[in-house]
């Protein structure tokens, strides 16, 4: 065991954790909206809209995240037309490509989580709202969405942890996130175990925090108080 290496690499890895957290929070933020959007499309009665939303979530859940990042980072740059539009400003940056890929990926999982949450809401609750003369829109925003969020908290907590692990793939498109820096230190010092313990420890700590925050929220918003 090389404890000196563990101590000297800790600040470097901690610095890289900031990149990981930035990627995670940005993709979760955009992914939540995307997921909500597609969950609503899934509940639409129009079969084409419905199938379109299903196709989106099926494709992004059925393929590895690595393929998705590579298609966006290496693949989209190949289209000449894109290079002339303003989108190129975003797509030439690996940072934004990673965020786009993560957003699309987590959006697909989130849409499934939210859809099943919406479907488990008892129809009686919606009917009660309607019979009180509340408009459809307000029933949706004030009744269905809050209940769906509560229902989907445990599953969404898992998704956050999965996404946090997913951000490690940003290192494959040259980003120096926690895993990227860990790999760099391993390949220069050839001390994989020490670096794994430190980097893995940081990841586990983040998992622990996320897990407990979700647990707290579940308790706070539980129906029986």
């Amino acid at each position: 065991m090389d404890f000196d290496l563990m101590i000297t690499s800790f600040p470097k890895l901690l610095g890289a954790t900031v990149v990981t957290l930035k990627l995670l929070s940005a993709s979760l933020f955009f992914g939540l909206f995307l997921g909500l959007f597609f969950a609503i499309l899934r509940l639409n009665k129009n079969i084409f809209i419905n199938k379109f939303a299903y196709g989106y979530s099926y494709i992004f859940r059925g393929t590895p995240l690595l393929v998705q990042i590579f298609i966006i980072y290496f693949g989209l740059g190949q289209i000449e037309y894109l290079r002339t539009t303003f989108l190129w400003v975003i797509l030439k940056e690996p940072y934004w490509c990673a965020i786009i890929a993560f957003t699309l990926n987590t959006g697909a999982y989130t849409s499934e989580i939210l859809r099943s949450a919406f479907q488990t809401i008892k129809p009686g609750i919606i009917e009660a709202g309607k019979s009180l003369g509340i408009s459809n829109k307000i029933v949706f925003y004030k009744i269905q969405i809050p209940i769906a969020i509560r229902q989907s908290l445990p599953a969404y907590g898992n998704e956050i942890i999965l996404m946090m692990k997913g951000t490690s793939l940003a290192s494959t498109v040259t980003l120096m996130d926690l895993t990227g820096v860990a790999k760099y230190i391993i390949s220069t010092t050839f001390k994989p175990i020490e670096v794994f313990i430190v980097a893995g420890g940081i990841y586990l700590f983040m998992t622990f925090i996320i897990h407990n925050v979700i647990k707290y929220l579940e308790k706070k918003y539980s129906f029986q108080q």
Partner: protein
Amino acid sequence: MELLAFGKTGWGDELFYATLMTIAVSITAMLVGFFFALIFTPLKLSKYKTLNLVGNFYTTVIRGVPELLVIYLFFFGGSGAIMYVASIFGYYEYIEINAFVTGSMAIGIISGAYSTEVFRGAIQSIDKGQFEAAKVLGINKFGQFYKIILPQMLRLAIPNLSNVWQITLKDTSLISVTGLVEIMRQSYIAAGSTRDPLFFYSFAAVLYLLLTYVSMKLINKLEVRYSRGY
């Protein structure tokens, strides 16, 4: 389509073999995972706190750390660890482990953590009376598990194991960083030499979709088979 031709002109045959490699790695990893689950599930269900701790440590660490980091640990640390063990037995030559073994071990350990959780859940949801009834009938320990618990457990475990299989299949794409030529690595090579990454990565995505689709269909059949009588 020319790009996908078989033979020397296209990448069809290379991608075909790469797909077989992905399937082979996934199946090996899944089996390695079952092996680990076989060890760690009893630990997690044990009466003894220390054994519980060992079991929980395994599943928590593996499920809380990115797959890629575990793969790097095996990729950079694998041969070192083997050489260390070999040196105890007086063997000092350089040992190189092949990428297939490293990859399927790394993915296997990850898949094992998920399988352990699935088996633990399935065993815990079997009615306690089943264990007691089996004991009362004088069936030996092996028979209890093999004839009574296992068939009931499999029915409950298969839907969740199908999720583990999907995760494992998708995780194999990460082994491409170690240089094992599976779908992702082959697409990377093809994309590099033809300068057509969009096509090859999209094709890789299609191959993965095909694999997940076909395996879902097969697992559904299995599910029906193990739910006979319910």
